[in-house]
C-alpha cells in the first residue's frame, strides 16, 4: 500500500518537469526575422540595425506575407537586436536570417569581423546567412526598397544570390560560416562578398545584385563590376553558367554570346626559389547562344575563328581581373595561398610572411580552352 502511494507521488513528480520547458515559444508570439541591415550611426557611434521581419499573421505562404522593418540601436549588434524589442510586442526569432547587409562604411573603416561575430556565436542564428555589402550610402536603403517579384527583400536577395551561379554568374555565393573560415584562416585568401545596390525598375526603386566586394583581411578594398566578377568566378572555379559576350575580332563590338554550360579551372604553380608562377588551366564547355552578324557557323574555319576569339577574350579579361585584384586591391583574390598551403605546407610557411610581395610579383599565366558544343536551333 505504501509502495503504491510512493509510486503515485513519484509519477506525478516526474510528470511536472516533463510537461514542457521554459523555452517554449508560440509562433504567434515571435516575429520571424529574415534579414538584418547593419549601419553605424555617425552621431553617437552606435550600431543601427534595420531588421526585416515577416508578419506571419496575414499569410498562408511566405509569398503573400508582408514584411515589416524594425530599427534597433545599440553599442553592439546583440544589444541593438535586443533594443529593437523596446518597440516590438513580439520577441524577435532570428533563426531564419537569410541575408546580413552591411554598409560599405563599416566594411571600409572598421572591417566586418566585429559585426559578424554575433551571427556565428549565437545559438539561434544560422550559419547559412549570406553577408552582403550595400553599395548605397546606408544598408537600410536596401531593405527599404521594394523587390520586383515579392515583397520580402531578404528572401528575394537570398534567392537571387543562390541561383546566380548557374544563371548570370555575376556575383558570389557565400555563407557566413565560409566567410568566417576565410577570415579566421591563415591562408590570406581575399574575402569576396556579393555587393548589392538599388536601381530603378519601372519608376520603383528595386534591389539589384551588382558584382562583388573585395576585402583584404576584413576591410573592404573595392568592388568588381558584374562583368569583372564573371571572369573572377572563372579564376576561382565557381562558375556553372552565365553568358559571356565577346567580339569576333578587335574591330567589332561584342557580338557573340556564349552560354557556359560547364567549366573546370585547374590551378597549379611553380616556385623556383625566387619567383612564383601560377598557371590557370580553364576548360569551358559552352553553347553559342547568339550571333549578331552573318556567318556560316558550320564552316570549320569560322568555328575555329570563334573559338580563338573566345579564348582571346577570356585570356585578356581574366588576366585583367586578376591584375586588378593584385595591384589595385593588393590581395590574393583567387586563392593562390590556399593552394600552396594545401599542397606544400612547408613552402607556404616560408612564403607566408612576405605574402604581399609575392602577390605583387607573381606571374600569372591563363590558359583558356573553350569548346563550343552547339549553336542552338539555327546554323
Amino acid at each position, binding site marked *: 500500500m505504501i509502495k503504491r502511494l510512493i509510486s503515485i507521488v513519484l509519477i506525478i513528480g*516526474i510528470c511536472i*518537469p*516533463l510537461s514542457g*520547458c*521554459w*523555452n517554449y515559444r508560440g509562433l504567434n508570439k515571435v516575429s520571424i526575422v529574415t534579414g538584418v541591415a547593419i549601419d553605424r550611426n555617425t552621431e553617437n557611434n552606435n550600431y543601427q540595425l534595420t531588421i526585416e521581419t515577416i508578419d506571419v499573421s496575414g499569410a498562408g505562404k511566405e509569398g503573400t506575407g508582408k514584411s515589416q522593418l524594425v530599427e534597433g540601436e545599440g553599442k553592439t549588434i546583440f544589444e541593438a537586436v535586443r533594443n529593437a524589442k523596446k518597440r516590438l510586442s513580439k520577441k524577435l526569432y532570428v*533563426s531564419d536570417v537569410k541575408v546580413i547587409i552591411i554598409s560599405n562604411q563599416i566594411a571600409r573603416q572598421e572591417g566586418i569581423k566585429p559585426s559578424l561575430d554575433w551571427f*556565428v556565436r549565437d*545559438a539561434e542564428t*544560422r*550559419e*547559412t546567412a549570406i553577408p552582403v555589402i550595400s553599395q548605397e550610402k546606408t544598408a537600410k536603403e536596401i531593405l527599404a526598397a521594394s523587390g520586383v517579384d515579392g515583397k520580402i527583400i531578404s528572401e528575394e536577395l537570398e534567392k537571387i544570390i543562390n541561383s546566380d551561379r548557374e544563371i548570370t554568374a555575376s556575383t558570389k555565393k557565400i*555563407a557566413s*560560416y*565560409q566567410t*568566417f*573560415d576565410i*577570415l*579566421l*584562416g591563415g591562408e590570406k585568401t581575399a574575402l569576396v562578398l556579393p555587393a548589392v545596390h538599388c536601381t530603378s525598375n519601372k519608376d520603383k526603386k528595386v534591389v539589384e545584385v551588382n558584382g562583388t566586394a573585395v576585402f583584404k583581411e576584413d576591410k573592404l578594398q573595392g568592388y568588381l563590376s558584374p562583368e569583372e566578377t564573371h571572369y573572377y568566378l572563372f579564376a576561382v572555379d565557381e562558375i556553372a553558367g552565365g553568358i559571356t559576350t565577346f567580339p569576333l575580332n578587335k574591330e567589332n563590338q561584342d557580338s557573340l554570346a556564349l552560354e557556359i554550360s560547364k567549366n573546370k579551372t585547374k590551378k597549379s604553380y611553380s616556385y623556383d626559389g625566387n619567383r612564383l608562377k601560377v598557371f590557370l588551366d580553364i576548360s569551358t564547355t559552352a553553347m553559342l547562344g547568339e550571333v549578331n552578324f552573318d556567318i556560316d557557323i558550320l564552316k570549320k574555319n569560322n568555328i575555329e575563328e570563334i573559338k580563338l576569339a573566345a579564348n582571346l577574350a577570356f585570356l585578356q579579361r581574366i588576366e585583367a581581373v586578376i591584375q586588378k585584384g593584385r595591384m589595385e586591391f593588393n590581395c590574393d583574390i583567387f586563392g593562390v595561398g590556399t593552394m600552396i*598551403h*594545401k*599542397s*606544400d*605546407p612547408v613552402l607556404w610557411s616560408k612564403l607566408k610572411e612576405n605574402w604581399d610581395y609575392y602577390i605583387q610579383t607573381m606571374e600569372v599565366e591563363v590558359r583558356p580552352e573553350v569548346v563550343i558544343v552547339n549553336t542552338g536551333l539555327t546554323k
Partner: protein
Amino acid sequence: MQREMISTRQFIYMIVLFLFGSSAVQGVSWGLGQDAWIALLLALALGSILALMYARIIKLFPEMNLYDVAEVIFGKIIGKIIIGLMTWYAIHLSAIVIRLLSEFVKIVTMPETPQLPMMILLFVAAGYITFSGIATLGKWALFALPLYLLILLYILILSTAEIKFSNILPIMEHSVITIGSASIKILTTTFGGTVLFLTLADSIKKNDNPYKIYLYGFFISAVTLVVIFLQSIMVLGVPMVEKSYFPSYTAARLINIGDFLSRIEMIIFYNFLLAGIAKITICLLVAVKGIGKLFNSTKQGLILFILCPFILLISTLEFSSVMELLNFTDVFQYYILPFQVIIPIMLWVGAEIKIGAKSR
C-alpha cells in the same frame, strides 16, 4: 544480487556506445585542425595496447570482476583501496558526462531552462536502467547502437551537398609531436575509460573472448569517430571547427536540401543524449557495484538513491562554466593515469604472478 550474463555482441555494443559518450559531442580536434583524424587513429593504436592488457586480466580470471580480482591478488585491505579508487573514478566520470550533456542542451537549445531538473531527469532514466541490471543495459545497447549509427548515416548522406574534400588538406601539416600529444589526450579521455568495463567483467561468459570484445569495440568506435570528424571538417572547414564548441552539431545545421529539409540538427542532439545516457548508466553500474562491494551490501536501490544526488552535487559544484569543463581535459589526462594505467598494470602483473604460481 543475481549475476546476469551478457553476450559478446551486447558487450561490444556497450563499449562502442560508451566510447561515443562525450567524444561525439565535444569533437576531437585539440588544436590540430585537419590532422585530428590521424591523432584519433594513433590513439586507437595506443589504446589497443591498453585493451590487450585489460582483456588479459579478464582472461586470467574468467567470470570475475575487477573488484574480486583485486581482493584475490592483493588481499582485503589493498583490494578495498583499489575498489574505492575505481568507484571514485566512475563517480567522477559520470559527473563530468552529465555536466557536459546538460551544458550542451543549455547552450544550444534551451538557454532559459534550468539545468538541475534536466540533470535529474537524465539520472532518472540512467538510474532506472542501472537498477534493472546489466542484462537490461545489454539489451538496450543492442537497440541503441544501430539507431545511433542509422541517424549518423542519415546526417552523412544529407550533408554530401556541402562537403569539400579539399578541407582535409594539407595532411600531416602538424609535427609528429603535436599529433602525438593530442593523441594521448584522446586516448585518456575516450579509450582509457573502458577500464571501467573490467568491473563488469563478471558478466562475460567463460568461453567468450575478451580480446575480441575490446578490440572490436575500439575499432568500431574509432572508425565512426573518424567519420564524424571528417564530416565536420569537410563541411565546415578548419577555422570553424576549431572555433565551435560542438562541431558536428554546427555542421549539421548547414544541411538544407531543396529548401524544405533543413533544421534537422536536433537529430544530432538525440544522438548525444543516447550516447550520454549509455555512458552515465555504465558509470553508475560500476559505482553501485563498487560501493556494494566496499560496504558488503546488496541493496542496489538504496545505493543508487544516495549515489545520484551525490553525483549531481559534484557535477554542479565542480565547474562554474563550460570553459572550465573543457579546460579540465588538460588536467584530466594526467589525473586518470592511476585509474587507467597504474592500477591495471598492478593488477595484470599481480595476476600473471598469481596464476603463474598456481600452475606450478
